[in-house]
């Protein structure tokens, strides 16, 4: 025979979580309360259950790293891109003009990039082989007979050509020009208005070779006020110093005080003033 107390404990054990949770019907809750008053073992259980419940409630949630959100966003973008080809499918039936992306997927984009870079590299190799890269001293050979475009043509080609082609044109044109040649004006325009600093630098070098022309000295002084690229600024300073252009001094003074000029440029301008005066 079991003692009534033990069997009561056993029976009530299943009810204790609900009792702690306060979800028992009133009648049963009263029965448990009455038993608890006389049973230390069951009291201990209730204490433990309460402590456990508190600990569970106090348990900190596991927080994911932010990488989870980043991965999700990347996955979502991918899925969205997979959806977009569906839309243009209907396009041919519509007579209305519509912009349709030719490369809708990331994959196509990547392949396009790879293909484009191969084309660019190939073009670069071809250019490198076909164009003459003769330096200052090389007045003979291909460059001498091939490139002496008339200034008008030169100005026209300058407008259309790519930056590297423009450099090539500038380098080649200056070789056999004589003082008073209108090419100087084209080169000065290039120096002042070409968007690419490397083209402007090439124009500087070309103009230096034409330094006998009085337009060049005037033009370089004028250009000192316009240039903002530090490489071009320093090259110009060196040139006016080398050519001993005294008239450049006021411009150099301004440049040495310009707050937007790099310190190295300002120092160079100051040093140039020292050599010129």
């Amino acid at each position, binding site marked *: 025979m079991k003692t009534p107390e033990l069997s009561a404990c056993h029976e009530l054990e299943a009810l204790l979580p609900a009792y702690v949770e306060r979800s028992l019907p009133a009648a049963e809750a009263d029965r448990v309360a009455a038993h608890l008053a006389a049973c230390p073992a069951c009291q201990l259980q209730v204490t433990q259950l309460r402590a*456990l419940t508190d600990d569970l409630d106090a348990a900190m949630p596991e927080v994911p790293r932010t990488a*989870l959100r980043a991965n999700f966003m990347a996955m979502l973008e991918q899925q*969205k891109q997979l959806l977009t080809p569906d839309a243009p499918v209907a396009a041919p039936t519509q007579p209305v003009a519509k912009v349709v992306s030719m490369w809708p997927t990331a994959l196509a984009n990547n392949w396009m990039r790879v293909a484009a870079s191969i084309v660019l590299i190939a073009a670069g190799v071809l250019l490198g082989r076909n164009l003459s890269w003769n330096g200052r001293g090389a007045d003979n050979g291909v460059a001498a007979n091939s490139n002496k475009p008339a200034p008008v043509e030169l100005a026209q080609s300058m407008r259309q050509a790519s930056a590297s082609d423009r450099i090539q044109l500038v380098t080649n044109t200056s070789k056999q020009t004589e003082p008073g040649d209108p090419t100087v004006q084209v080169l000065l325009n290039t120096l002042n208005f070409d968007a690419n600093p490397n083209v402007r630098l090439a124009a500087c070098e070309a103009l230096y070779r034409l330094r006998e022309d009085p337009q060049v000295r005037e033009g370089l002084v004028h250009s000192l006020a316009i240039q903002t690229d530090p490489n071009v600024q320093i090259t110009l300073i060196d040139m006016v110093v080398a050519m001993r252009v005294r008239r450049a001094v006021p411009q150099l003074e301004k440049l040495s005080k310009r707050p937007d000029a790099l310190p190295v440029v300002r120092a160079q301008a100051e040093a140039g003033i020292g050599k010129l005066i």
Partner: protein
Amino acid sequence: MTSTSTSDEELMAAVRADDLDQLVPLFERYHAPLFNYLTRLTNDRETSEDLTQTVFERILKYRSSYQPSQPFKAWVYQMARNVHADHWQRQQKLRAADADVEDVERTGALRGAAFSQMRVANHHDDLHEALNLLPTPQREILVLNRFQGFGYEEIGQLLGCTAEAARVKAHRALQALRKIYFAN
């Protein structure tokens, strides 16, 4: 059983209609609880991040099967349970494969992951150690009830039993946990 304004269900209906951006607010609402749920089940944060990601991948993949009449929460947790079950089965296969030397070599990386899981588990405090000693079904019920804020009705729906049965199971699980927690 709330039916408030811009509900999960409305958002998911939009996702179903290929408005995938509407998954973002659902992600914001659910990714942390799902990650938490999966971490309690796997004891492995890294795996749980992968599994959480998988849940959202499956939401997108199976979005057309979502019925706007069904609660999103139940649907997404069902999916999370399945994702975890798949993971668990993979782990079982892995353990079975351990007997085979060649397989061991082939799955070396995955075994490394299992080892890191053990290490992470060792870091947990007493409560989590006790939880980890519970059989998975009991642990899952407690996690849903205590950490995920699931009512017995919802647990019943998820586990395919009545709310009353879910309540009894949860109370048994709590008693089982108490015995482990206060064992010494």
